[in-house]
């Protein structure tokens, strides 16, 4: 069972994950049209790159934009959630050991306490993300079961992984659950709006190019996001 889960199924999950995301990126870029979008993407490349980078970087920085500044609570929530989501699995010691055992390579790993903190950060912020969906009318009106499902898919590997790492009763169960939910997440990413792990950069970059090339970027100082 363990062999299958961490062997063929894991390979398949990663395959779907990477191929799926590549397809997403290719489809997105190919679907851009200078005339329909009314942005001369290829004509003013320097302005386009400048606008795109500015748009992406401003939003990647906590409090880097007016929106992040005026909504500090949400900003903290979003960044705690995403930093934990991205960095924990990549720099987790346990994951690195597996990679080293199989391929003989390894990289920087997080101390256990940091990984635990990041994981708890993901879980706690997810709880708050659910609460605000219920509590705030402007979020509630946008929310459907699908949004909760995606949150569950995202957080499940962290809950199960955390429990497994704490050596609670039923270690095997939590370990298997962790692997399976992790694989579900990998597979779900390209097919759902979780694909924003790449589309965020493309969409942000696109609007940055729009502002950088057409909407004032060639005249003013560039948009203050």
């Amino acid at each position, binding site marked *: 069972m363990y062999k299958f889960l961490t062997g063929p199924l894991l390979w398949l999950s990663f395959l779907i994950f990477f191929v799926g995301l590549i397809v997403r990126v290719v*489809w*997105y*870029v*190919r*679907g*851009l*049209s*200078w*005339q*329909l*979008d*009314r*942005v*001369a993407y290829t*004509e*003013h490349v320097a302005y386009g790159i400048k606008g795109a980078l500015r*748009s992406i970087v401003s*939003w990647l920085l906590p409090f880097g934009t*007016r*929106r992040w500044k005026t*909504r500090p609570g*949400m900003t903290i929530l979003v960044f705690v959630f995403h930093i934990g989501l991205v960095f924990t699995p990549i720099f987790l010691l346990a994951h690195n050991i597996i990679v080293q055992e199989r391929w003989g390579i390894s990289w920087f790993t997080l101390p256990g306490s940091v990984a635990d903190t990041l994981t708890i950060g993901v879980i706690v912020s997810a709880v708050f993300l659910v609460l*605000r*969906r219920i509590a*705030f*009318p*402007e*979020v*509630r*009106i*946008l*929310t*459907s079961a699908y*949004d909760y499902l995606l949150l569950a898919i995202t957080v499940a590997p962290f809950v199960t992984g955390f429990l497994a790492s704490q050596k609670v009763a039923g270690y095997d169960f939590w370990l298997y659950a962790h692997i399976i939910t992790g694989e579900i997440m990998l597979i779900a990413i390209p097919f759902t*709006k979780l*694909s*924003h792990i790449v*589309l*965020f950069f*493309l*969409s*942000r970059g*696109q*609007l*940055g190019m*729009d*502002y950088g*090339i*057409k*909407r*004032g*970027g*060639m*005249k*003013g*100082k*560039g*948009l*203050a*996001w």
Partner: protein
Amino acid sequence: MPEGRLCNKKPVDSMEQLQALLDDRRGLKYYEEMNELDVDRAALSTAIQNTCKSRIRTWLEICAHCGLCADACPYYLVNNRDPKQVPAHKIQSTLGEIVKRKGDVDNSFMQNVMDTAWSKCTCCNRCGMYCPFGIDMGIMFGYLRGLCFAQGFVPWELKIGSGMHRIFRAQMDVTQEDWVETCAWMEEEQEDDWPGLKIPIDVEGADLLYTVNAREVKHYPEDLAEAAILFHIAGENWTVASEGWEATSLSMFAGDWAACKMQVETVYDSMKRLKPKRMITTECGHMYRATVLEGPYWAGYKSGQPPVECIHYVEWVAEALRTGKLKIDPARKIKEPVTYQDSCNYIRNGGLGDIAREIISYVAEDFREMTPNREHNFCCGGGGGLNGIGRYREQRNKGLEMKRDQILETGAKIVISPCHNCWDAIRDLEEIFHIGISWTFLKPLLLSMVEVPEHLKPPEQ
């Protein structure tokens, strides 16, 4: 009855059609016919397939439903934070549904889409600045308006407006003769006060080609005279075109892309014909957006640039003040508190925020910024064609409360508003709420304080 006589999928291309629409007072018959209008589902589905590409589809799909766009929208704020006014909800429940259902929607759905696209969004693009994914719902509403227009679901005034562009290549029924005559008339009017003042028509190779808004010609031609006087004082080598003189685009508000193309092409033709060094628009926001920013794409210019460099009137004013072509008499600078209405179309979407402040530094002593301001400013409340649509007067007036409160907060008595739509909206809000402000374009303001060089002064009587 699938197609009405007035309300149908055919754009207005003839005087007869136009007159029939104009004769229908307040569009009563037009909207009555709209209740019977069939949705051409196949055409709608084809349109989406052909024009709704990865950018918009991705926006619709990846929206995280986080609600961070909510308080970016003035309509959400001013309508007591009504969740139905959340931008993401507005676009998902209209365009999002149409795309999801592949165009399989009915009449009442489309009427709701029309009401949403024109009365709950002015395409100010502010929400796009507040979405972490960069989802610009203003752009999507602009696109949605195009789908609505093609199906005949468009507010009566804008059906007329786009028809005006199709027939007159101007937003109002002002013919080329009317225009040329108005130029001559305004020139004549200034004979005594400004000897030697000309409104040069069709001069080739001028430094500036000035384009106007037809309503100036039709309703307040003194605006043209003021422009001429300021160019005269500044010693500009300028001209206007007898054809392609009008650079506005109600067709952009209507979503009539074919008319948008026709309109800008006449303006671009005048640029190609007269070969000016630069083109300059009058004090109008959407004109700049349409002819300078979007127009090249409608006309199919891959460069995204109009045939000659184009500037907004504020850019010329800033330049003239900076270079000393226009000199302000310091004693006549405005002493009262004054604020500036940042037009979405050339500030947020045109990057001219600094230019506006530069002008202010020359003309006002007590300048008060609105909060928020520049790119982050709220729409005046009348953008996107909303000022002119009777059906949505109530919604428009509600939206004005946002601007009213912003202005009141500054304590300013004068609002400088170099944009026709903003100017109208602020005039209307004063008429409705009586907050004791005045509002002005730059031209009259500059004329009240500019120093006139000796040699241009009229001979002593």
